[in-house]
């Protein structure tokens, strides 16, 4: 187990280092000059050169890379060109915003997904199962940016009951969270449905029924608890995806999270923030995966992770 853990941590580090390298190279390959973006079209070449020096962009690429890696080890990503504050500070603000959005989406998905999944499993292939299943199929397929725009059109522009973007008021989180929750919701419905169906056929559930327990109690106490593991696993994995996948939703709703910070920073060629964002996102993704993997093996000894 320790060897396996060591191997997993090592390969996670490789993944983080790889992603950091890719983003370092990629963001510099994009045409455009951070200094020029800050100064605007009236800048003279001398002004641009002076600002580049100030940003530490005049050294060799390899030197910059080594500097970046050395600082990354201490979780220091330098200063944002655009915002004039440490990149980590810009990111921590955005990170809380994304985290709250992701959690809200997760709650919505769980609160609606669980009951619907149970409803499906209680009468498999009944009409409610069919309707819910096809709705969840639809929910998963709909392009989130379009769903977002439609929500804005209906609730902000036509009915004018919700703000179309930003995070200034508490209710502003509703539409982005729902948009983000939609695909997750579909996955949860399916997972709960199939997991419950499987468990309901097993012996101890039959026993509980035979004991004369009423159906809600059978489902609630015995069956549901035992299918939580796969749900927790997948939800964990999806949460990692949610953090990164919020880019589009955050753009549509102008949610001040990591996704929008990333897009804005790429547009401004704000190298330090882009690098910090990506490292944080990948770190989050990798850690969640690691934890879920280990947890999975721990909770269910039948499934020891292979290879």
């Amino acid at each position, binding site marked *: 187990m320790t060897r396996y853990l060591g191997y997993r941590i090592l*390969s*996670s580090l*490789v*993944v*983080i280092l*790889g*992603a950091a390298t*890719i*983003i370092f190279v*990629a*963001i510099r*390959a*994009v*045409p455009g000059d951070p200094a020029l973006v800050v100064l605007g079209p009236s800048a003279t070449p001398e002004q641009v050169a002076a600002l580049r020096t100030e940003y530490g962009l005049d050294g060799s690429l390899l030197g910059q890379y080594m500097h970046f890696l050395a600082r990354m080890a201490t979780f220091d990503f330098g200063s944002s060109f655009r915002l004039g504050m440490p990149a980590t500070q810009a990111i921590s603000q955005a990170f809380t915003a994304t985290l709250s959005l992701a959690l809200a989406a997760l709650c919505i998905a769980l609160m609606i997904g669980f009951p619907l999944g149970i409803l499906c499993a209680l009468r498999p292939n009944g009409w409610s199962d069919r309707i819910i299943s*096809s709705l969840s*199929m*639809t929910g*998963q*397929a*709909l*392009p989130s*940016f*379009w769903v977002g*725009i*439609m929500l*804005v*059109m209906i609730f902000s*522009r*036509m009915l004018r009951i919700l703000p179309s973007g930003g995070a200034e008021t508490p209710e502003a989180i509703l539409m982005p969270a729902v948009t983000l929750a939609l695909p997750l919701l579909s*996955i949860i419905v*399916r*997972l709960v449905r*199939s*997991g419950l169906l499987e468990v309901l056929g097993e012996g101890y559930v039959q026993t509980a029924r035979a004991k004369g327990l009423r159906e809600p109690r059978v489902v609630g106490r015995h069956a549901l608890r035992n299918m939580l593991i*796969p749900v927790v*696993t997948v939800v964990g*994995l999806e949460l990692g995806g949610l953090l*990164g*996948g919020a*880019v*589009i939703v955050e*753009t549509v709703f102008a949610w001040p999270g990591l996704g929008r910070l*990333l*897009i804005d920073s*790429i547009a401004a060629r704000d190298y330090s923030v882009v690098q910090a964002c*990506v490292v944080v*996102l*990948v770190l989050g*993704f*990798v850690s969640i*995966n690691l934890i*879920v*993997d280990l947890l*999975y093996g721990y909770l269910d000894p039948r*499934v*020891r*992770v*292979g290879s």
Partner: protein
Amino acid sequence: MSVAPAAPSPHAKSPRRGKLDLRLLVPALFCTLYVLAAVFGPFLTHYDPVATNTSQRLRPPLTELRDGSLALFGTDQVGRDLFGQVIAGAQISLTVGILTLLLAGTVGTALGVLAGYRGGWLDTVVMRLADIQLAFPSILLAVLIAAVLGPSLVNVILVLALTRWVVFARVARAQTLAVRVRDFVNASRTLGASHLHIVRHCILPAVVAPILVVATVQFGLVIVAEASLSFLGLGMPPGTPSWGISIANGRNYLVTAWWISTMPGLVLSALVIAVGILGDRLRDRFDPNLTTR
């Protein structure tokens, strides 16, 4: 990085015969409709993406235009016929979808089979690459590459293929790993068959069915990805009738002209749902082990 791969089955369960499967047939017919519209539609609508007509902009659906034609979906923000635009958009979406999957499918499957069959350092490198790719938000990768290469049809396909090969590689590798150790493969090897022969005659046949299923599922995702990229201004160049661009164009007119964003979105969603149902059904029939647990 990966949860244990689902045990693959080399032999796809043969489909039941005789009975008409409506859940397969209906979405398949629906998709065919899109293909027909994409291929023949433009000849009927005579849509010209360059020709604008500002004096007839923002006309609602079913308006009769000055030249006597009917704007079924209304007109857009510069007075172009939205129905023609959406039909032309189908052509773009399908082209991008098919070419991307061909590219990503070929490259991904080849790498996956290679990694699974050879194992060793090659396997490690390919799979670590795949891990990095998966950990990297795919939309970000697309944004970066699109920003470097600039918007064009070819670049969109390249970008999307680059973010999709992993899925194919993983499935192909898992299948290969499972088949590699089976008796008939060992038998061929003992009989002196070359690696190429084994891959072609033993491994590839087992890989094809799940790859096709994956391709169907991915098709919808690729189409949405193209629209999302174009929506962000990083996909197709402006003026191209991509659905994503049309939806983005309508954003500033949600109250004055709701149809500009709504219509292309509906058409896009309907296609993606149909493809989704189709993929689901194919997965159920051909490869029960790939179903969601």
